[in-house]
């Protein structure tokens, strides 16, 4: 249970980090919080030639508030996201989700961006990025590209990131302050990976739901947006709840593992969705 031999490089700045990635021939891993990477190294599931530590690069640990969005830097720890007043004001659903992310000591190290890059299908933050229409800035030595969260996740632990690339920021566009939200999760132990979770935002106009967003996790190879269910709920009210839940249960692709059967997860995600949608409806103004 020890990492195999590797070369440790502490990047001085972003340019240095991107140069190291460019020259590593695809055999480098970026070490940020390390709360998922280090276990994989200890288990020797990974054995990169170069471990590129970005923790000493100044300025990457900031949440920057802009006119219509916040930008999350690649070294923003979970403890910062969880307690940040701007996040609490504009994204109360994210503050709520953070209470389910790991445990106190893990939150001291783990990062928002690292969680997206790790892309565990049962992690909260990839689902939240999908719900909040996050835009992910990806940099390499040769340039930058922007990828929306919808296109970022390809499969369990797989994203569109190329080996020479690094996520350099994540933009979360603001939603209207009248937006209602609901977040429901079920895990065997608080802070552990969830069996399933549902996150919902919507607004209400003349007793009709608008701008409905529903994201789920734990019931597919990636977090999923429930577009069909969103359409069922759009311009409807809670009378449509049973149909929305049914649309979600039809759309998800849960797997059976040692924690729960696929049937149980399908049932569970519907129950959680019903509660989350009702909460979002109730809190929308």
């Amino acid at each position, binding site marked *: 249970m*020890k990492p195999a*031999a590797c070369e440790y490089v*502490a990047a001085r700045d972003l340019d240095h980090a991107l140069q190291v990635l460019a020259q590593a021939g695809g055999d480098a891993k970026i070490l940020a919080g390390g709360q998922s990477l280090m276990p994989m190294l*200890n288990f020797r599931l990974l054995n990169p030639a170069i*471990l590129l530590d970005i923790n000493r690069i100044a300025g990457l640990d900031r949440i920057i508030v802009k006119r219509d969005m916040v930008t999350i830097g690649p070294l923003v720890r979970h403890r910062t996201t969880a307690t940040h007043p701007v996040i609490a004001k504009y994204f109360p659903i994210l503050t709520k989700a953070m209470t389910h992310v790991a445990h106190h000591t*893990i939150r001291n*190290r783990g990062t928002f961006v690292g969680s997206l890059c790790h892309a565990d299908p049962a992690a909260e933050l990839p689902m939240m990025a999908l719900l909040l229409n996050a835009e992910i800035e990806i940099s390499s030595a040769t340039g930058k590209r922007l990828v929306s969260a919808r296109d970022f996740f390809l499969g369990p632990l797989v994203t569109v990131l190329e080996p020479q690339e690094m996520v350099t920021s994540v933009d979360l566009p603001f939603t209207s302050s009248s937006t209602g939200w609901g977040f429901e999760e079920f895990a065997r132990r608080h*802070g552990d990976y969830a069996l399933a979770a549902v996150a919902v935002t919507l607004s209400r106009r003349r007793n009709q739901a608008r701008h409905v967003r529903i994201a789920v996790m734990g019931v597919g190879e990636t977090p999923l947006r429930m577009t069909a269910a969103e359409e069922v709920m759009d311009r409807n009210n809670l009378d449509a709840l049973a149909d929305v839940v049914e649309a979600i249960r039809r759309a998800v692709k849960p797997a059976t593992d040692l924690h729960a059967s696929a049937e149980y997860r399908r049932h569970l995600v519907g129950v959680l969705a019903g509660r989350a949608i009702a909460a979002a409806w109730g809190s929308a103004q």
Partner: protein
Amino acid sequence: MTVVSVTVNRTVYRRDVEDRLLLSDFLRNDLSLTGTHVGCEHGVCGACTVIVDGYSVRSCLLLAVQTDGAVVETVEGLGTTEALNPLQKAFQDHHALQCGFCTPGFLMACTDMLRRLPLTTDAEIREALSGNLCRCTGYEHIVNAVRDAVRKRGPL
């Protein structure tokens, strides 16, 4: 090999370390500070918890080279056998340990949390403790000890 200079419990240590050396093994094998226990080595059990630059961390999920220039606190820095610190005393008073394997991790995680979190309700204490595993006590006595330590600490 890389030279690291790290302050552990107010003593500065300079050592040559392999890049892949875990902080937990560095503390135990290179510095002979065996109070930090090693359990699962993948961040689940919490037995190896120490404090680095003021924040509790899993020392099995950090490389020794990452702590170059850092200030580390381990269980050896709390109290002595003759003079336990208030948290250790609370653990003793409430029988919050049996085999003691998990105890250093609980003590260091609680040291961080007592500095930072209100811990005014049992629910909050239980959630705070949820990142550390104990296979003996059933946690009741640990919750009692932390509640007592919070009372003696006073409000933040």
